């Protein structure tokens, strides 16, 4: 666990607040899914909050871009998209961040750097290399972060993109959120090697493993990688070890793992770990935390109310946004 000494109180508060907001948002999304307000695929992020929060905090939000997979609600919140717009998107409403045409897997906000949730495992990796290519070509001073799961790392898309990023020296940071299961298949059953980060080394790309339960570790390592990307056009690869508490999607009861395993990870919950360090440093009290939690639950409830009361898209919307 990395020390929080040296970080402004505001920075730590905002990380804690953001992670807790994501947790409460996902809990509510799961609940609304159970009530059939949300349909289709819905991949929840509970347990992985430190990854996207650390990543977003490390980004230069004016110029950097982020592309991720389908478990993307947390990334959207971390990049500053309003919970209202995200919830409305889950409801398929016209006020959703993608006008109700994307859904759970496809949250977008061009200006905020949220360049998509991709529903094809690993499909975003070559694209992200391309966004990084454009950043270098335009000399805009930015870098691109690409996130994907441990299931994606065996796709050719990963390997082809890593090779291209290396030979063309692209300002990109590739991050494998290793939550240890590709749907129901444990990483041990799917990977030829135990440590996934060595797959980046095969392409001559600096690669390392990061504790994804420690938001400070994520922030620091991603920041260093982004700095190298921007300054030296040197891509990096990070395997961030994390854990998802819920099933792969709402339809998955996660019978392939033991209760003990899940509980052991709850002991190193990313929100709990930051909160404890902040308490120890006298930066937050239990009462203040409870008050924060109450406010965030209220914010999430308002997002639900917003989504519920928002209009459906007009049927004519079916034919818009196909061609530029």
């Amino acid at each position, binding site marked *: 666990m990395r020390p929080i000494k040296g970080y402004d109180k505001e920075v730590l508060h905002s990380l804690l607040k953001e992670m807790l907001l994501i947790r409460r948002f996902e809990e509510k999304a799961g609940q609304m899914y159970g009530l059939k307000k949300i349909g289709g695929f819905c991949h929840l992020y509970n347990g992985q909050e430190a990854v996207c929060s650390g990543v977003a905090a490390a980004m230069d939000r004016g110029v950097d*871009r982020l*592309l991720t997979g389908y478990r993307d609600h947390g990334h959207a919140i971390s990049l500053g998209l309003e919970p209202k717009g995200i919830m409305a998107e889950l409801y398929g409403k016209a006020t*959703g*961040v*993608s*006008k*109700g*045409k*994307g859904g759970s897997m*496809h949250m*977008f*906000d*061009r200006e905020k750097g949220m*360049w*998509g949730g*991709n*529903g*094809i495992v690993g*499909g975003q*990796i*070559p*694209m*992200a*290399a*391309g*966004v*990084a*290519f*454009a*950043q270098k*070509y*335009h000399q805009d001073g930015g870098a691109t972060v690409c996130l994907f799961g441990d299931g994606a790392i065996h796709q*050719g*898309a990963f390997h*082809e*993109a890593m*090779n*291209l990023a290396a*030979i*063309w020296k692209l300002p990109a940071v590739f991050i494998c959120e290793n939550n240890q299961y590709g749907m129901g298949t444990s990483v041990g059953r799917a990977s030829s090697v135990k440590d996934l980060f060595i797959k980046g080394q095969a392409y001559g790309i600096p690669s390392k493993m990061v504790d994804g339960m420690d938001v400070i570790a994520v922030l620091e390592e991603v920041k260093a990688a982004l700095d190298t990307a921007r300054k030296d056009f040197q891509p990096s690869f990070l395997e961030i070890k994390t854990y998802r508490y819920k099933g792969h999607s709402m339809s998955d009861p996660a019978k392939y793992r033991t209760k003990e395993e899940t509980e052991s990870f709850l002991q190193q919950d990313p929100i709990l770990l930051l909160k404890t360090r902040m308490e120890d440093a006298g930066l937050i009290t239990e009462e203040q935390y409870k008050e924060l939690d109450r406010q965030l639950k209220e914010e999430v409830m308002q997002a639900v109310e917003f989504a519920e009361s928002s209009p459906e898209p007009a049927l004519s919307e079916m034919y*818009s*946004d*196909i*061609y*530029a």
Partner: protein
Amino acid sequence: MAVITFREALRQALDEEMTRDKEVIVMGEEVAQYDGAYKVTKGLLDKYGPDRVLDTPITELGFTGLAVGAAMAGIRPVVEWMTIQFGLLAIDQLINNAAKFRYMSGGQFKFPLVIRGPNGPAEFLGSQHSQSFASYFVHVPGFKVVAPSTPYDAKGLLKAAIRDDNPVIFLESEMSYGHKGEVPEEEYLIEIGKADVKRAGTDATLISFSKPVLMCLTAAEELEKQGISVEVIDLRSLRPLDRETVYASVRKTNRAVVVDEAWPQASVGSWIQAEIMKDCFDDLDAPVELVASEDVPMPYNHALELEVQPTVAKIVAAVKRVAYKEKE
């Protein structure tokens, strides 16, 4: 007017657009130092440098996906696939990302991207390098698909494709690169979505695209000698399809034959055949015929491979059938 090859027409289009707009880049296997497998990109590396003319590793999925991402961020990549056949490795990046991201994001992004390369049967290449995949792309909303048959159309359409803000699939033909035709010195564009009447006629309409258009013109000459006047329509664009031009001709001649060098099932040709029969039903004096490739993988043997494809003789016979002049 200058007479140049199809390949030179394409090269001129790339050259002119790269000069006009710094966002235009070219990437693909062997496009730079090797001057292109079919020499379409000859000389571009020397003129525009390695930042804009990029040799890629043999990773169609990787570099096509990279181009999609670059387009998303404002570059106008022209990707060369050494053959469209290799593009099957990359088609996910095009369909799921280039064609859908604009829609899925509620219109926040655009993808000014051109994918070009030889499509359709060539010669002696065996089964894996010799087939038309036009229908794979025409099927997908979000793409535009063009397939020119002459150097003039190739140049004007490629320039329009590069300036288009949408992903354009640009289908060429390996057998056409050496074909010559007139191309004016002055700049011109050809609007995507407009067919061209390549020969006027009154008794039947031949509808085709890409290389088989030339076969249709030869067939039309032969039929003329037999007293049948044939109109030849070159679709040029397959998505969007210029129904207006096709239907106007069919309503005039009342008879139509579609020629497509792809397999017959669920092909562009069978789709157009169905569209005409549905929309021009009352104007037709005969069922619309389709001359396609045989429903088999392409054999290596030359006599077999020629007979698998549409031929002038097959087209002539089909026109005579729809004109009810088989016995003459």
